[in-house]
């Protein structure tokens, strides 16, 4: 279902989801062309979680993400040009080229750390929540992370602290491993946790936790709205696990676009290779969102095509901006070690 909001913010969410999708697909293409080096992780397939979730935050809320941060940054209104410039290691990147894909953290959007260390942000997020609580202005901290993070030892320590001290922190666990890489359909997880469902773990620390379908933007929006309201009102931490089906292009360590996203694909996936067609038909949150927008009479397909075109143009401009940005001066290597 769609989030229970009016047409304009719905279209804005659609636009952000498309922006994420086209950004990532273009990024994969650029990597295959050999135009940047280093590893990277894409957010495709999780747009239906990140976009509605982040739309509920206040401008002064504090965000922490991981190596899979591109979608979160774009959902929060990040500039795709500056994001790509960072991934390319250029001067105009958000971190002036010193962070790269894993660590892009636009402070101006409230991101304090995107850590490439699995689970590394959870103690930090609890700390930001501790600071927010001490100021008492209703600000919250949000940790956006994957299911694998729960395997790290920092996580139970953080759950314990956050629960004991009733910290205003949202733990949003994006489990992109339903039927995930390396697992047969029906197997539990791409992560390897004895505690299953994952919500068992926060619940052991008395943190209320729910599992929702992360491909259903409406359910995500409603669940997150209730929980964010509770956190903001002083009820302490909340844990939400969103289940998404791993995008087939991410089944290998190096992503591959098997079917470029179009508006058409939402209604006719016959153009996609047979082995991935089912994902686009049943598990793609963006295509579902677009179908529901039309089914609910908010837009017709031509209007979606127009939005899609403007997003692809924005991405093209972002690519030009990023590649036009020079590498940092070598002197930059020795700055920012200390204030």
């Amino acid at each position, binding site marked *: 279902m769609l989030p229970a909001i009016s047409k304009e913010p719905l279209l804005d969410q659609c636009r952000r989801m498309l922006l994420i999708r086209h950004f990532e697909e273009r990024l994969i293409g650029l990597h295959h062309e050999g135009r940047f080096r280093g590893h990277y992780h894409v957010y495709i397939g999780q747009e239906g979680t990140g976009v509605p979730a982040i739309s509920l935050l206040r401008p002064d809320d504090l965000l922490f993400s991981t190596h899979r941060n591109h979608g979160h940054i774009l959902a929060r209104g990040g500039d795709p040009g500056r994001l790509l410039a960072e991934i390319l290691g250029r001067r105009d990147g958000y971190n002036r*080229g010193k962070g790269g894909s894993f660590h892009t953290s636009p402070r101006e959007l409230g991101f304090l750390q995107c850590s490439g260390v699995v689970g590394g942000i959870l103690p930090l997020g609890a700390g930001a929540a501790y600071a927010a609580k001490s100021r008492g202005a209703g600000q919250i901290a949000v940790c956006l992370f994957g299911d694998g993070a729960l395997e790290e030892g920092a996580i139970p320590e953080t759950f314990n602290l956050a629960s*004991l001290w009733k910290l205003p922190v949202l733990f949003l666990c994006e489990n992109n491993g339903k039927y995930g890489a390396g697992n047969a359909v029906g197997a539990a997880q791409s992560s390897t946790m004895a505690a299953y469902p994952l919500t068992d773990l926060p619940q052991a620390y008395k943190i209320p936790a729910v599992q929702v379908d992360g491909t259903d933007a409406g359910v995500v929006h409603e669940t997150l709205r209730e929980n964010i309201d509770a956190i903001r009102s002083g009820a302490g931490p909340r844990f939400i696990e969103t289940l998404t089906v791993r995008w087939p292009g991410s089944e290998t360590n190096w992503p591959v676009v098997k079917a470029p996203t179009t508006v058409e694909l939402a209604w006719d996936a016959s153009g996609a290779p047979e082995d991935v067609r089912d994902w686009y038909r049943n598990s793609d949150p963006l295509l579902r969102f677009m179908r529901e927008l039309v089914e609910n009479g908010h837009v017709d397909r031509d209007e979606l095509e127009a939005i899609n075109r403007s997003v692809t143009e924005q991405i093209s401009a972002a690519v030009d901006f990023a590649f036009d940005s020079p590498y940092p001066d070598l002197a930059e290597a020795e700055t920012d070690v200390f204030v």
Partner: protein
Amino acid sequence: MRNLKYHEAKLEALRELMEEDERVHLIGGTFFSLSPHRLKFAAIEKAWPDRVAAPPISELGFCGLATGAAMAGLRPVVDVTTGSFLFEAWPQVVNEAANVLYMSGGQVRAPVVFHMLHGLRGGGAAQHSGSPQAMLWNCPGLEIVLPSSPRDVKGLLKAAVASDNPTVFVDHSNLFETEGPVPDGDRIPLGQADVKRPGADVTLIATSFTVQRALAVAEALASDGIDVEVVDPRTLVPFDLDTIMASVEKTGRVVIADETHQSCGVAAEIAARIAESGFDHLKGPIRRVATLDVPVPYSQPLEEYIGPSEERIARAVREATR
């Protein structure tokens, strides 16, 4: 100027920090470990219950929490108690706090202080006698502070909290009863070495509790006609090489006494810097008196044998001046 015990000066610094800046939060232990002075910390807890937090036994969790709180605008001072326990928090200290300013391209600061009591404390054995400062010196992005006197512990603790960088405050419980003059109020800027005792014959560089041993050795050797200059770097990062080189140029002889292990230890790095920038001033080899490269033994004579004892320091100074 008042004469204070080290533990009094330290407690005074903590109290003034709490009074002066409401962003300062104390998270962790009592800053005095198991010593009786820990009971005096209770008065601070009582005065500021909302800004003193006693976390569960989760060094990784609460060091990360303090770092995140610092990123979000507070000035947390964390006590991990024994220096060895910093190893439990290593990922958050060296991989998050140390990196965030650089990795963010200068966007995000983490003005957190990690406080600990390091070193050979008497019976700590291998798992409660750690001196992680040498390893930390290999992690760019962390300031490292090593007080050795009542004046220094107060002035440096206040400067560490005022600093916008993550700072590791490496204290030593054997210093608690040391007495000395303490001026009112002043911060001691990080990066200023201190000549603790002037002398002409040999430069004895020492850190933390070893400074007190070095001063005792210097007094003892004075009666033998050896005039020892004791120089205390006080902070490893930033490092005041100028003050040390001025002493080296004067004496031409160098002994470095420090409680970290010998290999890749604090003395090793200081020796390398002196050799690189002042080899021509040296009249003989630089001598290191460090903790032997073994895990710390429990038994008292064994523990004394492996550490930078006054006997070993005196022997090294005599060799250097021979």
